[in-house]
C-alpha cells in the first residue's frame, strides 16, 4: 500500500509517494536523496540517522515516513546558513570531533537537540536538581549524547565540541 506525503526537508518542500512501510530514513535517503542522515544499525541503537523533526532531535530508522506527513525535517545538510556553518558544526571542525565522519551528521543534529533541551531547563538523569537550571557539565554532555555511537571513538573531542557549542 502506498501513501502520498509532503515533507519540508532542509527548507525545501518535497512531495513523494511511499510504500507505507518505508521508514522515514529510507524515504529521506532513497526517496529524496537527502543523504546526510546515515543508516548505521537501522534498529535505533546507534543514532547515525538522527535529524531534527519540527526542531526536535529524533531517530528516523524506527518511524514510518507516512506518519510524518507535513513535518519539517532538518538534516545536518540543512543546518548551515548558506556558506556559514552552524556553530555546532564549526565546533566539531575546530575540535576535530570526528575521524571517518559517518556518525557526524547524527552527532551534530543530536548535539543541537542537547543544547536546546538544556537551554529549556530539561533535566537529564544525571542532573542533581530536577527543577533547577541545567549546567552542561561534561557528565551532562556524555549522558545526553549517549544515543550517538562513534566507532572511531572520537568521544573525547565530541564532548569538547558540544561544550564549545553551548557557548
Amino acid at each position, binding site marked *: *500500500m502506498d*501513501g502520498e506525503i509532503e515533507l519540508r526537508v532542509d527548507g525545501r518542500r518535497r512531495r513523494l509517494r511511499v510504500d*507505507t*512501510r518505508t*521508514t522515514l530514513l529510507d524515504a529521506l535517503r532513497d526517496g529524496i536523496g537527502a543523504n546526510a542522515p546515515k543508516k548505521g544499525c*537501522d*534498529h*535505533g541503537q546507534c*543514532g547515525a540517522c*538522527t535529524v531534527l*523533526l519540527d526542531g*526536535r*532531535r*529524533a*531517530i528516523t530508522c*524506527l*518511524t*514510518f515516513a*507516512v*506518519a510524518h506527513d507535513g513535518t519539517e525535517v532538518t538534516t545536518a545538510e540543512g543546518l548551515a546558513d548558506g556558506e556559514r556553518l552552524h556553530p555546532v558544526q564549526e565546533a566539531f571542525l575546530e575540535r576535530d570531533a570526528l575521524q571517518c565522519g559517518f556518525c557526524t551528521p547524527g552527532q551534530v543534529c*543530536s548535539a543541537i*537537540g*542537547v543544547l536546546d*533541551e538544556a537551554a*529549556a*531547563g*530539561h*533535566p*537529564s*538523569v544525571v542532573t542533581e536538581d*530536577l*527543577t533547577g537550571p541545567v549546567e552542561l557539565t561534561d557528565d551532562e554532555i*556524555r*549522558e*545526553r549524547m*549517549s*544515543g*550517538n555511537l562513534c566507532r572511531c571513538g572520537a568521544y573525547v573531542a565530541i564532548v569538547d565540541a558540544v561544550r564549545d557549542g553551548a557557548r
Partner: protein
Amino acid sequence: MPFDYRRAPDPEGAVAAATGWPGVAFLAGGTNLVDHMKLGLAAPDVLVDISRLPLDTVAELPDGGLRIGATVRNADLAAHPVVRRDYPVLARALLSGASGQIRNLATTGGNLLQRTRCVYFQDLTTPCNKREPGTGCSAIGGYTRHHAILGASAHCVATHPSDMAVAMAALDAQVAVLGPAGRRVVPLVELHRLPGEEPHRDTVLSPSDLITSVDLPPLPPGTRSQYRKVRDRASFAFALVSVAAVLRVEDGVVRDARIALGGVAHKPWRARRAEDVLLGSPADEEVFRRAIDAELAGAAPLEGNGFKVPLTRNLAVSALRELSREER
C-alpha cells in the same frame, strides 16, 4: 501480504478501525513496533496510526493528581514541571530509559506496551514460548543475565524492560483503556501479567484495546520518591535491576511505603511484602533490610542471574536510606 495503514480521526475511530482484525496493531512512536516488524517478530496486517490523536497533553486533576495522555512523548513527560517537582521517581525513571532522540518519539502508552528484550525472544532462530507458544523457552538453561528472579514460570523467564512502568507501579497509577465494549480503568499493577502458561500475553489488553491515558494519584505532603537503576553501561541500556521507591516518614516512623522493582520479573514488581514490613516501623536500615529480605524470600534466581538478589537488596536499601535521610 496485503497491508493496510490507517490514520484514526479520534480514539473511538481508532478502536473501531482496530476491532475485528486479529492482526491489528496501534502505531504511535514506533520505536519498538517498527523494530519488531523489521526483525520479523511482528507482522501486523493493519496499522492504526494513533500518533496524531488528541491524547498528547498532561493535565492536572482536581484532586491534585495528574492525567497523562497516551501519546505524550517520554521526553515531554520527563520535562513536565509538575512531574519534576512532585513525581521525581517518574522523571528519573523516564530519563534513565533509552536515549534523548528516542524519548522524543516514544509515547506513554507505547512505553507500557513495549515488549521484553530477552535475546531469545528477539532471535527468530531460537525457540521461544512468548514469540511462538509451545516451542519452549531457550533462556531456561541458557544465557540468563537479564532474566527474572521473581514470578517466572517453567514457560518463560523474560523481564519487562520499561523503567517508566516501574515508577508508575510505585505511584499506584491507573490506566484508562478504551475498547470495543467501552471504557474501563485498569490499575497499572494489573496491566501486565505474569507469564504462567501463556507468556505470549504480556498484558490483560486485547489487540483492539487502546490505552488513552494514565492517571497518577496525588502524593500526600511530605512524600519523597526516588528511582535507582543499575545497568551494564552508564547510559542507554536496559536495567539489570531497578527500584522505584515512594516513602513518607513522620517522627522517624514509616507512614507510607510503596516500592516497585524493575528488571526482576515479567511485570513491574510491586513489593507488597516489603511494604507490609515497612509500614508503621522505624525508618532505619535494619528495618529496610528486613523488608526487602521479606520480598526476596520468594526469589528463584536462575543459573546466570543470582547476582540480582543481593543487587536488588542493596539498591532498595540504598534508595530507602537516601529517602529517609532527605526527610530529616
